[in-house]
């Protein structure tokens, strides 16, 4: 973000417009955000020609392929686990298949798998359990062709809940492994 200071005014506007979208990129640990804010400036629809009263052509917007947003929105960056389990669930496999496909398409990308647990366990045990979950995802991706050297793991135990509530629903959300892009993604 410090580069803003050196940017020209047009570029500065671009950065500001994109700021709402790239909040997650500023944080250490991007969360799955579902932006409802403005699309990237490049995709902004041009005003319809004034003279011809016809319906404008639809323009679809999408994240830039290979960007972190592309990964988060179009692939998915989080898979979920059962209580005190670390085996990859069958409903998580398609998402991890897509992750491995995306990572093979963008070989410069380095990721960190972050293992997370619900609050229904003690701190140290959960650190160990989160490490198992992160490693289970790493092994899955490696077995599907992603180079092992591109993936690191960390366990946050129960320290970083994505759902601040308590109860079964929150606990399910918080038992997850998050694939965070560390470097190598296309600028968004």
């Amino acid at each position, binding site marked *: 973000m410090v580069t803003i200071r050196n940017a020209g005014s047009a570029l500065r506007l671009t950065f500001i417009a994109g700021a709402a979208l790239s909040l997650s990129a500023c944080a250490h640990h991007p969360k799955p955000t579902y932006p409802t804010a403005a699309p990237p400036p490049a995709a902004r629809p041009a005003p319809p020609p004034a003279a011809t009263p016809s319906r404008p052509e639809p323009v679809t917007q999408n994240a830039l392929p290979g960007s972190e947003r592309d990964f988060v929105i179009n692939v998915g960056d989080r898979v979920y686990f059962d209580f005190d389990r670390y085996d990859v669930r069958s409903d998580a496999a398609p998402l991890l298949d897509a992750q491995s496909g995306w990572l093979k398409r963008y070989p410069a990308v380095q990721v960190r798998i972050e293992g997370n647990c619900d609050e229904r366990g003690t701190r*140290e045990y959960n650190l160990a359990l989160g490490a198992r979950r992160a490693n289970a995802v790493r092994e899955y991706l490696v077995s599907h062709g992603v180079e092992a050297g591109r993936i690191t793991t960390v366990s946050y135990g129960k320290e970083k809940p994505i759902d601040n509530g308590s109860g079964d629903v929150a606990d399910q959300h918080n038992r997850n492994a998050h694939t965070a892009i560390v470097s190598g993604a296309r600028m968004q």
Partner: protein
Amino acid sequence: MLSFSKRSLLASLATLPAAALLRPTAARADIEVNVNRGDVQPLPIALPAFGGGQVGADIAGVISANLQRSGLFRPLDPASFVERDLNAAVQPRFPAWQQINAQALVNGQVTVAGAQLQVAFRLWDVFAEKQLLGLQFMSSPENWRRVAHKISDSVYERLTGEKGYFDTRVVFVAETGGRGSKTKTLAIMDQDGANPSYLTDGKAIVMTPRFSSTSQEITYMELRPEGSRIYLLNLESGRRESLGDFKGMVFAPRFSPDGGKVAFSVERAGNSDVFVMDLKNRTTARLTVDPSIDTSPSFSPDGSRIVFNSDRSGSPQLYIMGADGSNPRRITFASGRYTTPVWSPTGEFIAFTKQVGAEFHIGVMKPDGTDERILTSSYLDEGPAWAPNGRVLLFSRETSGGASRLWSVDVTGRILQPMPYPGAASDPAWSPLLN
């Protein structure tokens, strides 16, 4: 809530001094407080303001609060006192204290001479009409709270036969911010909540601080996206050093009783095992080799054994092995998930967290796994930490959707109360008695 077997009670009594066991049951014997029984009435004790002005009143106030919080004493309301002009140099008028049914009386005198604070006090057995203790402490005037804690320890020790735990500090993790964006800062305070201060800047997540039982040194774990580190922090010099870089996560550090080693967990490719590092030569030995989770090691007070947490049976349970990793043996077989074992400083008990269904409990058991006593029950209780005398436990309690707070409970489960710290906090650990 309590389930005492006859056997556990007898075993506990055996730790009292022989004199106490042989004490005649006749009336007018020395007063005595039994720390082992869950059904005792707290001893009525009178703590009039010490002579010497405001600091004398403040010292008596701190002693009174300490003894009250122990649950073993009931400080009497000063408004009920009949003898008002106590002189610490002469014997009190016992009938005036018998009249309000004070069993014990502590009176004292504070003198400030230049840069020195001098506090003399006496402990009296009101009905036996005799002095049980007379001592004098000297320090700097700013240090008056510690003098009050030392007097509290002296009174507690004389009346219970057990070492006190009031001249101690508690290290813990102070928490601020919402659940998903907590700031966790290492903090320390006196055991009564006074003098809180921060030891880290809150930029990294810190957790599980533990005191050395031989020095003012702590070990704790710091967690960053790049991984985790275990640190040693000397509280007197402020010097901090890492145990080193490991491949994989490191967590769950705890000192050996002599302070010369740290046992901890190292994770490799998802599998956590228990290791131990000799702090003198920085050599590391692996103690468990098992594909299960092995963590939360805690030494026996003689250093010969380690209790730890493993899910090798399919669910988290407690195991004991030799300090070299030999002969791991499971000690918990009841239903429930057992974690965070901590050997008591006296060797008498192992404290633990137990999860049964939706409830979490703090409990204690004998080191062989028998005589389990569940002491607490809530949505989330975890991480017991022993007072240096092995009679009181601190732990973290979190309500559903609420913040974590520090609580204490005594080994009988009768005296359960929040710690006098106003903020959100977790992972308490008790210092040894200060020198």
